[in-house]
């Protein structure tokens, strides 16, 4: 049980690392959204699932309710994260930011 939790948690942390490094490395606003919006979502999925599993260790009604709440956070993240990403990219388009194309300088 502990091994599964640790593996899931580390996989989540790996994707979080990918997200953070991607935000720093990618050349422009639109391509930065790719790691920010989605690697973070998958990282949250894995890490939060691991924590909910670990919370069920001492099984009772109380811990079951807490685990359901943790899963509820996960459902909310899955609904909200694409919408937030979409709102940001829409604001960028309306403000007139031009997408980066191959061969330009990074900004």
């Amino acid at each position: 049980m502990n091994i599964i939790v640790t593996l899931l948690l580390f996989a989540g942390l790996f994707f979080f690392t990918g997200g953070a490094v991607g935000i720093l490395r990618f050349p422009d606003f639109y391509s930065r959204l790719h790691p920010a919006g989605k690697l973070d979502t998958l990282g949250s999925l894995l890490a939060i699932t691991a924590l909910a599993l670990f919370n069920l260790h001492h099984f009772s009604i109380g811990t079951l309710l807490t685990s359901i709440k943790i899963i509820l956070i996960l459902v909310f993240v899955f609904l909200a994260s694409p919408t937030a990403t979409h709102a940001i990219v829409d604001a960028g388009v309306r403000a007139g930011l031009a997408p980066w194309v191959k061969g330009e300088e990074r900004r």
Partner: protein
Amino acid sequence: MDRQNQENLGTNRSPTNNEERSSTQSLQGRRLFFYPFLITFIIMFGLWLVLSGHFDAFHMSLGLISCAIVSYLSSDLLFPSPRIRGLFSQWVRFVRYVPWLMVEIIKANLHVTYLVFHPRMMELIDPRIIKFRSKLKSDLALVTFANSITLTPGTITVYVSIDGDFKVHAIDKASGDPLPGEMEARMPGHSVRSNG
């Protein structure tokens, strides 16, 4: 401008739409109003039970009263058109759609992680904007499709119109090519439209 905003945001897009629809369909009687109310009430009360954690009579009755008020006021927000007939098959399709989406998300996430950690990343990525027209018609299907495109890494939905025109920002050629393709064919709203 304002109407476009609502369409773009995707989630809260239909207050005006709703009023038109409910006024045209109010003639169809009270029975159509009842099922959305019941389903909204069940969802709300389940949320109440999970979030409060108290199971004594006082808190339960408070929850019953407030959930009834909320679902009476806003049941038409969750179900814009009170059409129950296709709902069950749509749910079955949705449940079958989610695991496939999970596998796609994980595969595509690995691809983006590979791009992020690649030392010569600037030569690999090739951002482009793709335009296509979707065949989906219902509001919910379009929103789910747009969110699924955004969740599949490598692609972000930039713009959706109510007719199904999509603009998608893809990070390289490989992740942009499969659109609309298989994901659209598996969408939950698709079968309902073709059945009538």
